[in-house]
């Protein structure tokens, strides 16, 4: 296979970003101070021109000097203008594939493609920042082709791959690429989303940013003062301003939410889940179903009132910063629908309804635990003694804090549920925010059971699971009955029944004895 470069659109994308980042300096030096002959302004202009020239050269050269080559089982990347760097990324390390299409690239019919590996640091992902759609498809095909071959090879040698997926996978027909669309939002979903996400509040930081940027160059403050006194002078003007601001904020919120969640699509085929979102900047992600380690369903207090929930996939491999929240399935679904969606996407995971409640003893233990937060809060209040009008004295605040903490503990007790059955483990917990966690035994990479002195007195214990993710996902459920904790330990050690031969099951626990 030949060496290829990214599409020249890469240069345009970089130039666009350069312009975006330097525009304010340019405006300042060449427009606001255009008449100025002051030494520092003139020097600044020359430095600016030099820096831009070097940046542009660097952008062109680094595009020219970056090449990649697709091999049968890996991708090779050479980069670096002066010091060359060679990277070899085997396909078997690639965990997730995602695409992000900024508006600039869309104008040229291009896309960007990122292959995520499980590795740490800057080499965690391979980015094709600007490629044609056909080229992106070619890269994904190379990846899929490699996977198919490997599955065929695994089929030829029975048992070679059966470690995680179990024997059933080997008999399955090869995945066909039939995609089913599971969800696209309607207009009412977007409206609901824009109110629930409080995105209209986001207008405030945006205004603040604009203000502080302008304020660097103009003396806004003194003008604003005049404006404010004008406002305060007339109730009508003030009212209209507030109304205008509210309308602007809501419109802004709806537009912003629409841009993010407006064109949302969740689809899947036999092997992968695809999530696509974004109107101007398109982001898409594909996750192998086998890589989904656990599912988390979150209900914020507001969502609980409205019967909504957010389901999130815990997967192997990390995402880039602005993609972190993409692994959640549309965050404003009715709870029932969210649960159904999980079932549709992951047929081998089932959200259970019948979960156990905690015993009464758990409530006693929780009430007896030392209320560290409340005590620290009280100490802080004692020394600080906030003195504002309308705010009660510190003893009242401290009492309220204690009441709140104990109320939360009670709610948490009431909300907590667990289920350990078949290959599944499911926890639900949280006082105001409610969170349900669901995983399968073979996806849990570590199990822990612990019992504190207090828990021992009341016959309860804590269980915990660790799942692969980046960073690892640790889940803990406190104060379930000791018998259930024992059952949990039992459940986990029977993790791979097909690997335990009959004679070994009966054999005593083998260890090395220390005599010293």
């Amino acid at each position, binding site marked *: 296979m030949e060496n290829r470069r990214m599409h020249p659109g890469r240069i345009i994308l970089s130039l666009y970003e350069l312009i975006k980042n330097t525009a304010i300096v340019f405006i300042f030096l060449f427009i606001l101070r255009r008449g100025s002959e002051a030494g520092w302004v003139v020097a600044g202009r020359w430095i600016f021109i030099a820096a831009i020239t070097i940046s542009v050269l660097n952008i062109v050269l680094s595009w020219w000097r970056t090449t990649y080559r697709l091999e049968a089982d890996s991708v090779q990347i050479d980069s670096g203008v002066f010091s060359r760097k060679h990277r070899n990324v085997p396909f078997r390390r690639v965990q997730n594939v995602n695409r992000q299409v900024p508006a600039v690239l869309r104008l040229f019919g291009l896309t960007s493609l990122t292959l995520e590996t499980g590795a740490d640091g800057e080499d965690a992902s391979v980015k094709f920042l600007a490629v044609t759609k056909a080229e992106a498809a070619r890269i994904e095909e190379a990846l899929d082709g490699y996977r198919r071959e490997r599955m065929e090879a695994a089929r030829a040698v029975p048992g070679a791959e059966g470690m995680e997926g179990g024997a059933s996978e080997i008999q399955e027909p090869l995945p066909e690429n039939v995609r089913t669309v599971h969800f696209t939002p309607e207009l009412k979903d977007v409206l609901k989303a824009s109110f629930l996400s409080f995105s209209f509040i986001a207008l405030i930081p945006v205004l603040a940013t604009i203000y502080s940027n302008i304020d660097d160059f103009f003396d806004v403050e003194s003008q604003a003062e005049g404006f404010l006194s004008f406002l305060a002078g007339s109730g009508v003007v003030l009212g209209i301003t507030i109304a205008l601001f509210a309308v602007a904020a809501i419109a802004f919120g709806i537009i912003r939410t629409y841009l993010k969640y407006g064109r949302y699509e969740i689809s899947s085929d036999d092997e992968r889940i695809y999530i696509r979102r974004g109107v101007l900047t398109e982001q898409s992600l594909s996750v192998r179903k086998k890589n989904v380690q656990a599912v988390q369903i979150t209900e914020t207090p507001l969502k609980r009132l409205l019967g909504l929930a957010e389901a999130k996939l815990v997967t192997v491999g990390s995402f880039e910063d602005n993609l972190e929240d993409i692994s959640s399935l549309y965050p404003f679904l009715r709870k029932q629908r969210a649960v159904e969606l999980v079932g549709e996407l992951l047929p081998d995971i089932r959200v259970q309804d019948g979960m156990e409640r905690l015993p009464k003893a758990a409530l006693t233990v929780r009430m007896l635990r030392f209320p560290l937060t409340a005590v620290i809060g009280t100490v802080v209040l004692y020394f600080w003694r906030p003195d504002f009008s309308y705010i009660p004295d510190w003893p009242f605040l401290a009492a309220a804090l204690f009441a709140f903490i104990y109320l939360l503990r009670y709610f948490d007790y009431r909300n907590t549920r667990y289920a350990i059955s078949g290959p599944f483990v499911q926890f639900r917990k949280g006082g105001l925010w409610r969170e349900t966690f669901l995983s399968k035994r073979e996806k849990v990479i570590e199990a822990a059971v612990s019992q504190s002195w207090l828990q021992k007195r009341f016959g309860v214990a804590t269980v915990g699971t660790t799942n692969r993710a980046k960073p690892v996902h640790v889940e803990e459920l406190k104060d379930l009955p000791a018998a259930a904790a024992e059952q949990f330990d039992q459940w986990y050690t029977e993790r791979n029944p097909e690997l335990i031969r009959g004679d070994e099951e009966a054999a005593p626990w083998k260890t090395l004895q*220390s005599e010293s």
Partner: protein
Amino acid sequence: MELDIREPEGRISKKAVTVWRLSNTIGHGITLLVFAGLIIAGNQFGWWDWAMTALWIFGGLTALSAVYSIFIEPVILQRTWRYGADEEFVKLRHGVITVQHQTVPMTKVQYVGLEQGPLQRKFGLYTLTVGTMGSNHSIPALPEQEAKEFRNRISRLAKIREEDE
């Protein structure tokens, strides 16, 4: 009600008590010296009263925790530590006030390592570290012979499985 979980049988060396006592004495000794120094300096230069009160409180707490972690904790910790490995799992159990049972599947073990600090070297002990994809667990204070056998055993058992994606 104590948990009825089948626990592994491997115990750590009795010399661990001495090693922990020594290292905790050194650690807490230094902290207490620092507090003593600060209190003396405070008296000398007349620091604020609340600062002196805080110093005395935290110094006192450190002294109490020193008594616990030098005289009491090492004995119980050594007595309650258990470790073991079968074909399927590495199992650990430890803890004084809170008892922890940990189960790590062999397939998830990524590396095993031995470590020896200066104090441990004096007593011929090793710390064995079992690392998985997301965490690592240490078994403190194993005699050389056991440490090496256990390491080899885990690396052998963990290698039987093929590489896990």
